């Protein structure tokens, strides 16, 4: 009973946050988009009416009841090549807090309806050298500013937008896989077979858009899209909101602000204070994802193995860390 109560408590809190968020959003008149870290269902279903009690005691409809809560659909075809105006997206991942909870992976798989084989964000157990400590390393696509994958595509199926996001158009891709060899971070996946897609989901999501990369096409390439469909609705990417530790920060570099859903901080401050860096900077690809070094770790590395499915745990069996464990035994 206690567990259920607890669960209900937290979901109630979530509800309140949403409700109050909507309320607060309405208040500013700036466009509630800017203030919600919220659920798309509310935006779809809400037919919000706000009542205003005037000084005379009359109850009228408030002006803001005309705010539309319609979700903006992902852009199709040529429109998808245009980035969101005056934005440049950046991500910061705090390695000090990551404990391989894999909620980001689950949220991404679910949100994009990915088959189990495809992981657009992968979690690695890296260890830079013998004496340095191992750490958990979430790796989404880095959406590089100097993307080699885009340079080598022979048909222009993958492109970089003005807002920094690199997308793949599965209706143009010929499946030569040159981009997969071009990416030094192994960020891309390939549809080796006909992907299993449910008709119901297909109808829900609508026609193919490079921003959702759904439905996937056999013989083409897929990768992390920084949830471009969410960004059109001023919502954070799914991995950011799913992380229980607030490891992933996301934001607009031109606004100098990143947030992990609960903490909002200036990007310049974060990178300066925590000595942010980019992975394999010397390759010159100019990634849009910064990492904060695993200093003052909140959890020991072993926490990352807790509760893992055996198949997932096996993946790390050949890492430097696990080999050392085996040697010690």
């Amino acid at each position, binding site marked *: 009973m206690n567990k259920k109560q607890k669960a209900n408590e937290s979901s109630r809190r979530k*509800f309140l946050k949403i409700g109050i968020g909507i*309320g607060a959003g309405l208040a500013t008149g700036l466009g509630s988009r800017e203030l919600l*870290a919220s659920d798309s269902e509310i935006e779809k279903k809400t037919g919000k009416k706000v009542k205003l009690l005037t000084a005379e005691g009359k109850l009228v409809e408030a002006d803001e009841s005309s705010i539309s809560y319609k979700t903006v659909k992902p852009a199709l075809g040529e429109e998808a090549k245009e980035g969101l105006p*005056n934005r440049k997206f950046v991500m910061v991942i705090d390695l000090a807090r990551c404990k391989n909870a894999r909620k980001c992976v689950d949220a991404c798989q679910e949100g994009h309806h990915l088959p189990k084989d495809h992981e657009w964000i992968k979690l690695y157990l890296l260890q830079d050298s013998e004496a340095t400590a191992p750490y958990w390393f979430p790796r989404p696509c880095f959406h590089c500013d100097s993307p080699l994958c885009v340079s080598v595509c022979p048909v222009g199926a993958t492109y970089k937008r003005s807002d920094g996001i690199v997308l793949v158009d599965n209706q143009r891709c010929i499946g030569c896989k040159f981009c997969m060899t071009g990416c030094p971070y192994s960020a891309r996946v390939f549809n080796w077979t006909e992907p299993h897609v449910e008709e119901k989901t297909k109808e829900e999501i609508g026609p193919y858009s490079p921003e959702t990369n759904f439905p996937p096409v056999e013989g083409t390439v897929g990768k992390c899209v920084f949830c471009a469909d969410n960004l059109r609705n001023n919502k*954070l990417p799914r991995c950011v909101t799913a992380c229980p530790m607030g490891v992933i920060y996301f934001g607009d570099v*031109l606004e100098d602000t990143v*947030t992990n859903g609960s903490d909002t901080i200036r990007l310049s401050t974060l990178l300066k204070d925590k000595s942010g860096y980019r992975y394999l900077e010397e390759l010159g690809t100019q990634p849009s994802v910064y990492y904060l070094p695993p200093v003052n770790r909140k959890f020991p590395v072993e926490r990352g193995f807790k509760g893992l499915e055996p198949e997932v745990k096996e993946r790390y069996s050949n890492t430097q860390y696990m080999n050392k464990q085996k040697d010690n035994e």
Partner: protein
Amino acid sequence: MNKQKKEKMRNQYYISQLFFILCFFTTIVMVAETEAEEVEILEIYSDMSYLKQSDGNMQFTVVFTFDGEEDTEAVSNVPVSFYTNEDEPVKIAEVYTDMTGTAVLRIAPDYKFPLNYDGYFYIKAVFDGNEKFEGSESEISYIDISLDLSFDEIEGKKYIVAKAYKLNKSGGIEEINDEDVFFYVPRMFTRLPIGSGYLEEGKALLEFPTELPGDTIGKVTVVARIEDHSVFGNVEKISSVKWGIEKINTYSEDHRALWTEIAPKWMMITLMIMLSGVWGHYIYTIGQLFKLKKDA
């Protein structure tokens, strides 16, 4: 012998009657219980919050939820009555909850609230209940204050100035001191906290952050907030100033690089030269072959 037998039979008769009556009552109770189970009314939870908005409206948001099978679910489309005055509740409005179980009521700034002795207003939101849900109510009580937000340059430095005041009983303006005011800048997903000030001598100052990006012309919108205060609730004031850095995306459509749509110039030129050189020779050779045929 007969008498004993008769008594025994009488006892048996009483016992069996008792037994039947017991069964009967048990059945009735069981039936009643099942019927009761079918019409059990669900308990609901309510939560109300208050925000004094920038334009002076007072916004009351109340959310009604209940414990569904797996998760919390919303109590939607039910009437919520708002009452004021704690001692003699007066109904001032009725709002229906939406799909998320939220009902929002705004009250214009010059609405005459009945205040209690200490100057607090009182709002109660009541859902009376229906065949499915129990009734629930939620109440809050705060003092109504307002914030003022302005921007000043003092001794060459840029400051954000916040003032808090309330109307006292005689209609005069009373300064509020010794409270924290938090400042934010609204960004794409959330609000960026830029600092806080302490109300002293009627105002709270915060030095304007250096190199803060604004919009395309450098305008920065600032939100001043008194947050989760036990007496004042949440109070906001929003204003903007053109002290920020202009936010311009320097990405150019005409940019030529390896990863853009248009190739670098030298690449195209080199390719043209090489192709024309080789194919020129091919065409010459094929021409020779045609002439060969003609010569024959």
